Structures are given as structure tokens and as C-alpha cells.
């Protein structure tokens, strides 16, 4: 018994060592950085311990802009992409012919490089001296006014950003949901059919509860993923996100470390901790909600 326990720990040891070096130590380091006031990267000195870094970050307009952008992104893209993925998966699982073709088509963006997708979006949306971008051509075709989606008004840029994010996260969600739908035993549907259950009722009372664990998994990971968005913004709007007004929290952290205004690890650490607190809170709320509904649904 005792030996077994020692053996178990021994098996875990390599993983624990790596976790300690690459997870625990940096985490503690971040905590320390975030508390050291007026830390100077070159001389490795600081003037005191306190909350000044947090106060700075929270009053930095760039950070507030990044916070706002990230929240908008999360609130719009997570429900939208999950809902869309559910609709598409339902469609996919109810057709027989060409199903595999459609499944492949929907999965393509998943295996395509972020920057390549970003390039495609540029072509679709960017206004250059030579062309207005495909989307603008369409808008004009229907009598609208051309919009500069990449360097234009905030709403237009946000729209592109959300569109892009939904597009990128959709394939994985569709993949998860189609397999979740396929794993529901068909006898449930046959029983419901014999009993004359209307389609909508089958969906809400049988299908949804049956796939709800997967839905919650997607929502939680979706939230976390959207909060960590960064490379998507770079792919669309270039590296100077602050100037574009399209920075995200992770982008802000990156800029504080390595950007033109970089060399402020303390501010970066403070921002990272704020992000951590937000993600933690949202995840806990999500878990509580999913537990509650799971029990009700059980």
C-alpha cells in the first residue's frame, strides 16, 4: 500500500518537476514582479512593494481600451460561435448525402494557419488605393457606402475582428458538437418519434440535455480562448495595435514586455494577474452554472 503510493509519486515526479520549473516558478515570479514598484529592467532595481503597478495599469487608457476590446470580443463571439456551430452541426447531422464533403469544408479553417486566414480577411476587407476589398465591392453593389474595415471606424474594425474570431473557432466547435450529436443513442429519438414528439421539443428536451456537457465544455474553453486573443488581432491590424485601437489584454501584456514601449515587466505582470483574475471568475461562474443545469437536467 505504502510502496504503491511512493511509486505513484515517482511516476508523477518528472511531470511535477517540469510543472514546478515552467509553471509554478514563473507564476511566483509574476506575482513578485507585479508588486515591485518602479522596477528598472536595466539596473534590476525597484523602489518599494505595493499596488502601484495595478493602479497604473488600471488607469492606463491603452489597457482600458484593450479590456474593452477583449470584453466585446468575448461577449459577441462566444455565444455567436457556439450557437452557429450548434446550428451547423444539427444541419450536418440531419443530411445524408455530401455530409463528409461538408464536414471537410467546415473543418478546413481549423487546419489553416492563422496568418493565412488573416491575409484572406485582409483581401476581403482592406481598402487600398487600388481596390476597396471584396466586401466593399459587394456593399457598393447593393448601393451602400464603402467602409474602411481595417483602418476605419471602430465598429467596422470590431466587426471584422469578431467575424474573424468566429470564423477561426467555428470548425473545432462543429467537430465537437457533431460527434456529441452522433453519440446520442438513436433509440431516444425513435422512442420520441413513436410518441409523436414535435421536432422542437425533441431538440430542447432530449438533444440539448444530452449534449449539454459538451456545450458547457465549449463555452468555458471559448471564454478562456477569447480572453487570450492576440494573434488574431495582429493578423488583421498589424503589430501596432494600440495605435489601431484594437489591442487586447494579452496584446497589452506583450507590448509592455517587448513592444516599442516595452521593458516594463511589472506592468505586464500586473495586467497578466488582472487577466488571470477575470478568467478565473468567469470560469468559476461557468462551472457553477453548468453544475446547476446539469443537476436540473439530470
Amino acid at each position, binding site marked *: 500500500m505504502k510502496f504503491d503510493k511512493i511509486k505513484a509519486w515517482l511516476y508523477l515526479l518528472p511531470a511535477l518537476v517540469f510543472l514546478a520549473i515552467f509553471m509554478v516558478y514563473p507564476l511566483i515570479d509574476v506575482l513578485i514582479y507585479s508588486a515591485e514598484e518602479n522596477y528598472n529592467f536595466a539596473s534590476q532595481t525597484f523602489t518599494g512593494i505595493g499596488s502601484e503597478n495595478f493602479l497604473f495599469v488600471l488607469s492606463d487608457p491603452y489597457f482600458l481600451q484593450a479590456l474593452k476590446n477583449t470584453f466585446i470580443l468575448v461577449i459577441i463571439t462566444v455565444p455567436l460561435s457556439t450557437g452557429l456551430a450548434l446550428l451547423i452541426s444539427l444541419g450536418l447531422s440531419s443530411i445524408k448525402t455530401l455530409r463528409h464533403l461538408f464536414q471537410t469544408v467546415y473543418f478546413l479553417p481549423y487546419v489553416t494557419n492563422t496568418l493565412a486566414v488573416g491575409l484572406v480577411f485582409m483581401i476581403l476587407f482592406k481598402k487600398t488605393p487600388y481596390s476597396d476589398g471584396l466586401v466593399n465591392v459587394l456593399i457598393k453593389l447593393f448601393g451602400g457606402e464603402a467602409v474602411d474595415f481595417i483602418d476605419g471606424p471602430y465598429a467596422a474594425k470590431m466587426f471584422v475582428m469578431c467575424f474573424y474570431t468566429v470564423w477561426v473557432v467555428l470548425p473545432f466547435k462543429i467537430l465537437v458538437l457533431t460527434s456529441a450529436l452522433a453519440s446520442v443513442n438513436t433509440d431516444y429519438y*425513435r422512442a420520441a418519434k*413513436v410518441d*409523436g414528439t*414535435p421536432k422542437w421539443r425533441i431538440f430542447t*428536451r432530449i438533444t440539448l*440535455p444530452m449534449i449539454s456537457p459538451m456545450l458547457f465544455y465549449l463555452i468555458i474553453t471559448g471564454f478562456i480562448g477569447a480572453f487570450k486573443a492576440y494573434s488574431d488581432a495582429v493578423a488583421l491590424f498589424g503589430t501596432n495595435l494600440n495605435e489601431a485601437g484594437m489591442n487586447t489584454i494579452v496584446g497589452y501584456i506583450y507590448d509592455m514586455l517587448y513592444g516599442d514601449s516595452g521593458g516594463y515587466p511589472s506592468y505586464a505582470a500586473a495586467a497578466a494577474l488582472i487577466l488571470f483574475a477575470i478568467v478565473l471568475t468567469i470560469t468559476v461562474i461557468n462551472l457553477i452554472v453548468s453544475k446547476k443545469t446539469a443537476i436540473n437536467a439530470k
Partner: protein
Amino acid sequence: MKIVLKGLTKLFKSRNKDAKEPVVAVKNFDFEIPDGKLIGLLGPSGCGKSTALNLISGLETPTEGKIFFGDEDVTDLQPEFRGVGMVFQNYALYPHLTVRQNITFPLENFKKPNKLTKEQKEERVLNVAKLVEIEDLLERKPSEMSGGQQQRVAIARALAKQPKVLLLDEPLSNLDARLRLQTREEIRRIQRETGLTTVFVTHDQEEAMSISDMIIVMKKGEVQQIGAPQDVYDDPTNLFVATFLGTPPINVFDGRIDGGALYIGSDKISDVDCGVQGKVTVGIRPEGLTISDEGVLNCALKSVEVMGRDTSVVALNENLTSQALRAIVSSENARLAKPDLTFKVNADKLFLFDAESGLRIPFSAKDACKG
């Protein structure tokens, strides 16, 4: 409600993409299921029992033929308009709903003129729960119950909407042996109490024989024989039916008819009058053999197995084509067993079949082997 099937046929596109031929799951079903009876639809796995049941329920549409409930043609009717209750092998209870919610579920689908009030629904649920004896389990989730209890709930759910026909697809297959016995009696009782026309699908002949008023034996999509269990057992139309029914199974031998006498190997079994010459297949039920010094069938003893009241004598015979010869005899008779023994054959338990087609060859035995 009697069910009439007329030329009912169902073809499936083969799941094997290379095979061009469609799978004939149900072939030309042409019979009547009498009102208020419990019918056992019996056959080996993959013979089309579920498909036949699904055709009756409306979950599958026939390739050809018609289905009548009473005088009404229901062939083109959707399942919900046929008034059938269905029970599945894996119960198909909604795992996230309580027993009460599961049983109420079909009632909530009723449309306007038939819509039930809350009280009516509760009353119905309580009534069926009492009928299947699960009224104490109404607030449980399916996962908190045994398989037998879950199957009762499934039956209750099927009965709640007061169907005209009850269809059960291998309802006992997921239960352990003891529960299976118990639950099948339960099904019989419930059927008696409700008087519902019930079709019960199973691959277990004992199950079907024990509770059915009438059994339909199927093989590869085709009906082999229809009748009361005892009649089918005593008077099988072909070798398949004879071997499929009965535990232990019937003993099958290669035999021949020569000059009005039936031989198994060099043993003359009996004088027979059937107008056939040459090779035949011989079936003898285990209870048709008794050990006797004046016996006609010579065998080598393998073992004697005591099974409570009766004893099973296992023996070898070189003309046997079934696994090992078994005779079910009284314990007194079993005491006569010795290494080289002879069996007397009861002509009522002896069947002759065409060696090629397996069809039954009727015959009348001379007194010689009666006994």
C-alpha cells in the same frame, strides 16, 4: 386491435458498399395477429425481427405491402397516429428525467382536442405506475434503478398514452437470468391485465415459448411457422424450426429410408410409411429417447448429468449431426445407463426432414417403435 399484414416486404440497401443486392430484411409477411393476444416474434439475430416490428410501429416504411390495424389501413400513417407503444432493448429512458417525467413525456405531446389536464396526466402516470408496480420509484432517475425496474418504467411509459398495440423489441435481453424470468412473467401479467395486442420480439425461444399465445418463427426475413408454442414445438414444418425450438435442442441424425424402414446407420429405428426412399434427416427430441434393453438406437455413453427432477443422458452416435446426443429421462431410467446403451424412440417425438430442403416429411409409424 388485430393487426393484419399483407405481402409486407422491406428491402434495405446493403451496408456493404460492394454488394449490389439489397438486404431482404422482411419478406412477404402475410398473416394476422389476433386481437388481445401476446405474440412472440422469434428468430435468430439479424433475421429481421426488429425490422418487422419497426414496420408495424411506423418507424420504417415498407418497400411493398400493407399494414392494417383492425380495418384501418395504417401503411402510410406516421408512428404517432398509429397508437402504438414501444419498448426498446436498452429501455431508452431519458437519463436526465425522473421516472415521473419519463412517463409523462408522451402525454405532453397530445394535441388540442386530446390535450390532458395536469390532474389527468398525474392520474394516468399513477395508474400505469401501479400496473407495473413502480409507484414508489417515481422521483428516481433511471440511473438509480436496476435494469428490471428500468424496463418496467419503459413499459409504463409505453402504456401511459393508452396505445392500441404494444410492441416490445428484445425487452429482456439486457437483464440477468433471474430478472429475465421475473420480468417476462411480469410482461405476461401486464398483457393479461390490459388485454393489449402485444408483439414481443426475442431471439430466445424459451422466452417466447413460455409467455406467448402464439409464436411466429422467422429465418432470414421469412416466416417459417406460425402457431401456438406447443403446436409449433410438436409439429415443426421444417428442420430449422425443429432445431430452433427446445432446450436442450433436438438431436439430428443422418438417416435413410430403405424398403419402408428408417435406418440410422445400421440401426433400424422403425417401419415407416411415407413414400420416400433414400437419405433423410432425422430429428428426435431429447424427451423422445429412453434407455431400454429392447432399444433400437445404439450409442456410446458420454456422461450423465443430473438436473433436479430429470436427468440428462449425453451420448455419442456417429450419425449425429447436432452437437452431442441428449436424452432427458427420469432418474430411475438413468440408472440403466451403461457404456454401450440402446435407446427406445418415441415416434411422436421423431421427425423426418428432406435431406436437401429440410422440409418435414410426414409419415405414419408402424407400432414397432411406439413406446
